């Protein structure tokens, strides 16, 4: 760092080289606060073992060919090349996006409506409803998938029974691509609408009532105050729920796996990216490839989060 430009900066005049001096100072600082560092160390140690190391290792693994037991051999970019040229991977990406759209948009809408109703003054037994809406979120996912499996069952399902009551023909839900995707989406909506409603509710309650009162005095209607006060004030919370639902939606796995199996059902309608990753790594034993798919998914989620963020923040009406 012998940049002459730096010499103009007012540095303390010392004969000792700058670098080692600051190092000394840093280690002295650490030594001085050793107890504090020791106190915070468990998190960092555990994170390094269970968080950082797996991430770094999966990066390394994505360039290897490995069946899980034998020797690892360096595979260059072959895993990534195979991924980008594999129609099943793109099929999985498409399925995941479709399921995400089918589930997230209705889910967040329902959540907003539920939150609005729970916040309304005319609702009684509010705590009961709050718990009731949140309950699906803590139900075992596998149990939920099995129950929904019987609801959507092709011949003897509850849904087909209801259709038959109205004299309609039964639908082979789980033998159709759209049927599988619909079933998975309904499962996601059922499970997460209440959770997001509780988050929206917290957001609604943090909006000062003076804003609504002032709007009322100025003659604003209920709908006007909803769109001009509620929605803008909820924007950061909506952004939060959109991003978390995106991350969650991109990682859907248990629902399709329990509902239609490792292959994603008929012609892979329920084959999501994580299910594809799971199948390739743990069923077909391509662990290096599985790691590469994991990184592909990382890129996708990052892209989508940025797009979401731009979309929700993009409207400049926010002051």
């Amino acid at each position, binding site marked *: 760092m012998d940049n002459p430009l730096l010499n103009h900066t007012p540095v303390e005049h010392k004969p000792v080289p700058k670098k080692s001096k600051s190092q000394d100072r840093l280690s002295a600082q650490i030594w001085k606060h050793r107890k504090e560092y*020791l106190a915070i160390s468990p998190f960092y140690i555990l994170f390094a073992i269970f968080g950082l190391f797996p991430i770094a290792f999966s990066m390394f693994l994505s360039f290897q060919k490995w069946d899980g037991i034998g020797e690892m051999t360096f595979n260059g970019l072959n895993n990534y090349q195979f991924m980008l040229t594999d129609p099943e991977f793109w099929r999985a990406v498409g399925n995941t996006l479709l399921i995400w759209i089918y589930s997230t948009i209705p889910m967040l809408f329902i959540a907003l409506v539920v939150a609005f109703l729970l916040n309304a003054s005319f609702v009684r037994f509010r705590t009961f409803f709050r718990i009731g809406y949140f309950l699906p979120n803590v139900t075992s996912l596998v149990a939920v998938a099995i129950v929904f499996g019987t609801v959507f069952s092709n011949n003897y399902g509850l849904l087909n029974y209801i259709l038959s009551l109205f004299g309609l023909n039964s639908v082979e839900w789980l033998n159709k691509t759209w049927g599988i995707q619909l079933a998975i989406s309904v499962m996601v909506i059922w499970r997460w609408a209440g959770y997001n409603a509780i988050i929206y509710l917290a957001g609604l309650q943090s909006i000062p009532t003076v804003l609504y009162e002032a709007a009322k005095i100025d003659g604003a209607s209920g709908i006007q105050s909803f769109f001009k006060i509620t929605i803008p004030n909820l924007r950061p919370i909506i952004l939060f729920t959109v991003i978390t639902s995106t991350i969650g939606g991109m990682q859907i796995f248990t629902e399709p796996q329990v509902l239609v199996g490792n292959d994603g059902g008929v*012609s892979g309608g329920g084959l999501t990216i994580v299910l594809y990753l799971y199948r390739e790594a743990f*069923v077909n034993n391509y662990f290096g490839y599985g790691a590469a798919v994991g990184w592909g998914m990382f890129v996708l989620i990052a892209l989508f989060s940025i797009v979401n963020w731009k979309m929700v923040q993009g409207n400049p009406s926010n002051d």
Partner: protein
Amino acid sequence: MNTRRMVSLGLLILILLISGCAGTTSSEKTKTLTLWYWNRSLDDELIKSVEQKFPGIRINAQKIGGDFKSKLKTTLAAGSGGPDIVAFNDWVAELFTSSDRFYDLYELGAKEIEPDFLDWKWKLGVTPEGSMIALPIDTGPTALYYRADLFEEAGLPSEPDDVYAQINTWDQYFEAGLKLQEHFDNKVKMLDNITNIYTQINAQSDHIYFAEDGSFIGESPESSMKTAWDTAVTASQMKLSANTTTSSSEWNAAMNNGRIASFVGAVWMKEILMQAAPDTSGKWKVARAPGGDGNNGGSFLAIMKTSKYPQEAFDVMKYIQNPENQVQSFKKINLFPSATEALDAPVMKETEEFFGNQATGEVFSESARNVKPAYFGGKYANLNGIVNRELSSVALEGKNPDKAWKDALARVKKELLR
């Protein structure tokens, strides 16, 4: 200083405890053999009896739940912390490339007991290079399960011997199916799904996807792959399939409601069927399968190279799998024997109420004796998955069979290059 040292020592101990380094305190004189198996892959009481039979040996039997294969592979990858004896399922061939991680049982005296076992089953545990990594546990001989009452009503033969005599080939089976479905106005289907037809025809064959040198033979005439595909597609085109995935809730309901008249399945399907279709008790019978005898599944025992007591481990395995104990395991938890002597045991002649007082053991024993030895290869499951996916598309979405076959082959070739 002292307190700091104590704190860091305490943390170190804590980390060691968390990471599971504790537990290797085997300072006794007895030799401890750790065994990994999954529920109902071995008889628990038989395992307990090992310690009486072999004084000085302690068995630490661990039932591994969840995804057994993944846990085994993780352990192999870690290189330590594994058991002495480990059970394998029918994916044994996937471990052939790692055969150096297991003891060659031929070196521990397996040659002596080789004549006691069914030849084809024994060979499934031997690598193409000739080292034996896995000792047979049970087998899954296949046969035709059929509703004798429905067959009789439709004017088909209904006694097992007559069924076997008259419905001997897949063509005859399909013709019988048409007759039966016509009689019941298509309210009853002849079979459950066509991927099962595909699986069963391959299970009856001695050449499926790979030659022993690992080369793909699916396109050569000796392989059963194309025949199995065409036969399965024919069944679909003749509308003989109820299109229900085996042992799904749909399948269970269809079986219990009498919507499916027959299917070819392994001996272990007996329990699945009995649980799925209690209302049809007494109406089922079992006959030798059309197209020949085959095998689905069946497990093995192996000794990890990390074991300190390979000879003791092998002696224990030999004891667990001797013919008398195989008969006991069959009686208790329905593990169908792999020892030829056990196939003649009196228990095979016991009648079963669910199967109209037929002794199905006789049919399955005969089937087990006639299975052809086959080489599966490490990628059998991958290829089977690809073909089954295309077959489902044909059956359920009406995909053009020729296009599906081409897609399947293209995908298989891509898979083989990985």
